């Protein structure tokens, strides 16, 4: 039981960055923009967050600068991909390469560090010990003692869902993605809406990046986002573009990560546990495909 609660606690922790990135990418996805740059945005935020935290010792400033870095990339992505109409996948991959290179370059040139940057001066995010939660059994064990960003991510889920379905912005974003013509015909600012969707994603990726770098480890490691941006994309696809579905699939990944961390000393090799989310996404999608197979053309989905 203790073991299970501990795994669930870690699940929530590991889910947070994936879910934030995925919920962020969700808007772009609904607006018809494939945001491959989620990975780069997170990494940039993690990097600049760590640097700022090191230089100032102020976690709020770190948060701000991290998000700012991610937003700047959001602008670059939007400018090249939306305004200049470059191929979105290429622009996204270019940004990912650029961030990986730049973070490691700056680390080496400015701080003389290779690969990893750890220092006692780096201030991390404090885990919150919430008195009310602490005393509730089970729930307390799962939900207490997380970084503020974890709690924020749960709020984000609700807000994202609300915005998408109950506000003008959400309707506009869905319109732009589903039927651009309709948006143009009533004079909705199509490009501006796409920019907004990407930039919302940037802010959330910024939060995700900070949480990765400044939760319990408080350091920057090259490539420390480890493909979470792509996993987030997979979660969006598998969750069929809904906020809830996206979060559920993010949880699946988070759970597998947690299992892997917790089971390192058990006999099953971690690799196989780590494979679970990837394989289960494939299985889930295959089953959905099988169920939909009746009366459908091959080309329907393309």
């Amino acid at each position, binding site marked *: 039981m203790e073991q299970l609660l501990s795994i669930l606690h870690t699940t929530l922790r590991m889910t947070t960055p994936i879910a934030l990135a995925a919920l962020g990418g969700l808007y772009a996805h609904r607006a018809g923009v494939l945001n491959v740059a989620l990975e780069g945005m997170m990494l940039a935020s993690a990097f600049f967050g760590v640097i700022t935290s090191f230089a100032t010792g102020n976690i709020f400033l770190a948060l701000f600068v991290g998000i700012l870095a991610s937003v700047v990339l959001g602008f670059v992505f939007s400018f090249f991909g939306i305004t200049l109409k470059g191929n979105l996948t290429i622009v996204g991959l270019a940004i990912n390469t650029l961030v990986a290179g730049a973070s490691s370059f700056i680390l080496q040139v400015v701080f003389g560090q290779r690969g990893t940057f750890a220092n006692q001066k780096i201030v991390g995010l404090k885990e919150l010990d919430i008195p009310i939660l602490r005393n509730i059994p089970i729930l307390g064990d799962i939900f207490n003692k997380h970084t503020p960003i974890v709690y924020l991510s749960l709020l984000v889920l609700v807000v994202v869902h609300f915005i998408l379905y109950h506000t*003008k912005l959400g309707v506009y974003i869905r*319109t732009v993605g*589903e*039927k651009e013509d*309709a948006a143009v015909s*009533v*004079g909705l600012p199509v490009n501006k809406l796409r920019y907004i969707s990407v930039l919302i994603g940037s802010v959330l990726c910024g939060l995700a990046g900070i949480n990765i770098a400044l939760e319990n480890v408080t350091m920057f490691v090259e490539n420390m986002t480890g493909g979470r941006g792509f996993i987030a994309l997979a979660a969006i696809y598998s969750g069929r573009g809904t906020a809830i579905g996206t979060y559920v699939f993010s949880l699946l990944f988070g759970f597998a990560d947690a299992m892997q961390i917790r089971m390192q000393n058990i006999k099953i090799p971690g690799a196989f546990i780590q494979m679970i989310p990837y394989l289960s996404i494939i299985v889930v999608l295959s089953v959905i495909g099988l169920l939909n197979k009746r009366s459908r*053309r091959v080309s329907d989905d393309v």
Partner: protein
Amino acid sequence: MSVIEVQEVTKRFGDFTAIDQITLDFAEGEIHAICGENGAGKSTFMNMLFGLLQPTEGQILLHGKPVDFHSPKEAIHSGIGMVHQHFKLVPSLTVFENVLLGEEMTQSLKIDRQREKESVQATIDNFGFDLDAGDKIEAISVGAQQRAEIIKMLHRNVDILILDEPTAVLTPQETDELLDKLIELKNLGKTIIIITHKLDEVKKCADRVTVIRRGKKIGTVYNQDVTEKDISRMMVGRDVSLDFDKKPCTCGDLVLQLNNVTATSKLGKKVLEGIDLEVKQGEIVGIAGIEGNGQAELMELFSGTRKLTDGEMIYKGKKINCCDPAALRKMGFGLVPEDRYRDALNATMSIWENMIAGRHKDYCKLCFFDDKVIRQVTKELIEEYDIRNCDNIDALVSTLSGGNAQKIIMAREISCNPDIMIMSQPTRGVDIGSIEFIHQRIIQLRDEGKAVIVISSELTEIMNLSDRIYVMHKGKIVGERETSQTNKEDIGLLMAGINHQANREVAFSYGT
């Protein structure tokens, strides 16, 4: 008094002049029809009025003041609304959400859906439209979607309404209703501009008619002063006749037979139900119906891209329930689908690559292409089918006009020497010259003893070509007639789902 004056407006796209020095005025409270063939520049002209395009030269005056719209929003704010041929509606949203798109009613941040719905329903009732504000667009009929588009504009208080080919998707009865509605709106003081190439409709509702040919204005006339024939001559530049002498049909063996065929959509809804149908050698069978009543699905069934869920399809005595397009083609099916650039042609490939598609394997040695043979065959077909602007067969097929592109498809399909030829909307978006040519080829196919099926929503086309007619409504065949023993009115009623004395209400409740 004129509401809009257009002064010497020209629109160029690169070297191509789409609109050439057009001067025109629209009077308050009139229905003004803009007529012209496909590609004459009607839509370009209207898009300039609506702010989707800006004139290269010349100016547009609204109530005597020059205007320069840069977006449809500005046009709408100035009181000009447009109903496009391809609806600008978001399928997953409701009617009221679409109507209010961009002008949502909110309570603090949240959209107040209840108030929105009531407000839109009030407008609908006010103008006497048959529409439910709460329905989702993807769940209502095409006619209802069009009503939603019109309401979308009326709700925004426009006093000038532009309609681009509004009747293309409607039944004769729905068309009449629409035209009546337009006259009603005119009497309320609205100015209506209707773009169309259907002259009988022009005659029914317009006050004045302007004809455009190849981007130039040919003239503006009062409707009461001219006949359909006069307008037609202005449009084409010569007399046109789409009537021809047809030998009586000499039917041979049964080729294709559908017995009690049913098919369901992804969501489990029946899109085809209990279809019984047969075609014989040397016979043209027409399938009439308002668009969206199962013809597209039927065509998919014929093409092997949709599987039937019940019943059987029998070709020359053999059951062919689940064949893919490749297998059907091998058995002698020639297929001309309705969506030209989706199914029949690959817009980003060259003319010759499109010309050999499907039998490309016949032109190769050891899986390498035999360029010489391919080029020769392509050139021969281009000549035989009188396909224009095809000197460079490496050019993209999308550079061709609708008529020439359709001829490429006809040439390809006919040269495969099919036993049965199935065509959907064979002359949509095709100029009159090509229509004549294509119709003659279809008759010729029949006279050669092929079985031919023509699916079309153009009633005139069905009446002219077919020996026998089936009429579809709501995924069913609601009637079968020998062409010689029926008339347009009879078929029109069937298209609306009314089998003579049946209740007229049925027709318009579809999908709502």
